[in-house]
């Protein structure tokens, strides 16, 4: 069984994705982090990043390419990081602008959440974003995430000062929203 949703499926990164990843990173409207500036990433930089990944059974991250089920087109990428064994992970999604507003990001997010909660058995999934990024907050809320914390004046972007939003989804909150799944992992608390 693959990582498949209603509109998209997730597969491992391939070399052919690199150019699109680079383009999304160099576009100020699709790259997520002030930290990632300047937008001058090159193909060779992304190739190096791709080739540096090493085989391991102790991975703390996962990076997937989002593909349209209808057309097999590259839609974007979604990842988790900061994975702590069976406990927590943070996720992030980037979608090509031509696919915005079509439910692809939500579908990819739901696929990844199902993987994290049902396969990796995490207790909490987090999203870090910034104030004013309503589409990101709405996308998170649609999957049941809550804004649980805010750090004021942490980000300077687009000429304005913004705050960091700490957004999270607990295991029991996820299963309450998904009665189609039964949580068979015994409570650890």
């Amino acid at each position, binding site marked *: 069984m693959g990582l498949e949703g209603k509109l998209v499926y997730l597969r491992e990164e391939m070399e052919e994705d690199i150019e699109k990843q680079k383009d999304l990173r160099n576009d100020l409207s699709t790259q997520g982090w002030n930290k990632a500036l300047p937008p001058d990433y090159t193909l060779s930089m992304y190739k190096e990043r791709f080739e540096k990944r090493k085989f391991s059974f102790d991975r703390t991250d996962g990076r997937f390419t989002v593909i349209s089920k209808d057309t097999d087109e590259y839609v974007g990428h979604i990842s988790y990081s900061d994975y702590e064994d069976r406990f927590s992970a943070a996720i992030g999604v980037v979608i090509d602008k031509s696919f915005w507003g079509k439910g692809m990001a939500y579908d990819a997010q739901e696929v990844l959440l199902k993987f994290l909660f049902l396969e990796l058995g995490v207790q909490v999934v987090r999203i870090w974003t910034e104030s004013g990024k309503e589409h990101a907050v709405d996308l998170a809320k649609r999957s049941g995430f809550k804004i*649980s*914390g805010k750090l004021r*004046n942490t980000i300077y972007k687009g000429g304005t000062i913004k705050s960091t939003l700490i957004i*999270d989804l607990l295991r029991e909150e996820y299963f309450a929203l998904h009665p189609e799944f039964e949580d068979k992992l015994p409570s650890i608390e």
Partner: protein
Amino acid sequence: MSSSLFETDLIRFRPFKKDDIDLLDEYLNHPELMGRKNLPWGFSEYIPLSRPQIEEIHKKWIEKKKGIALAIEEVSTSTFLGHIVIDYGWDTLQPSISITITPSKQKKRFGTEALHLGINYIFNSLPAMQINCWISESNAIGLQFAEKNGFKQGGRMRRVGMAQGKFYDLIVCDMLKTEWRGNQ
């Protein structure tokens, strides 16, 4: 009054030294500091630390980049009091600060003095717009200390770990540079 960046009449910050390992072994394994040792990422705040782990922490603090990790000592006696960590590894606009004082030296103004020295360093030396700190919800003393010294709570990061059979959250606190200036 001392005019040093890292010294007051009461305390000073100094770099960790090679022969601080024994001192750190005792300090970081003190049972009363469980859950509030402010260790580098990846080290448990609750599990007793082995000698190699202490040495690794010591090395990380000595070699720290994009931030400072310094010992706090009493000026009059040169006695070790604890440590301060300021971290701006993610972004210099938003450094985090943490202070730990050894239990026998707590509630003697050393922590307050160290915090003020740390805050002054950040706002006078870095392009920071705010300072943040992350405190376990079970650390009532730490939360009270932060609030008393001008930090405001901004919610929490839920379920960051487990202690004594329960999940616990981190409370996020921050202080804006404009607030700090207003209190000068």
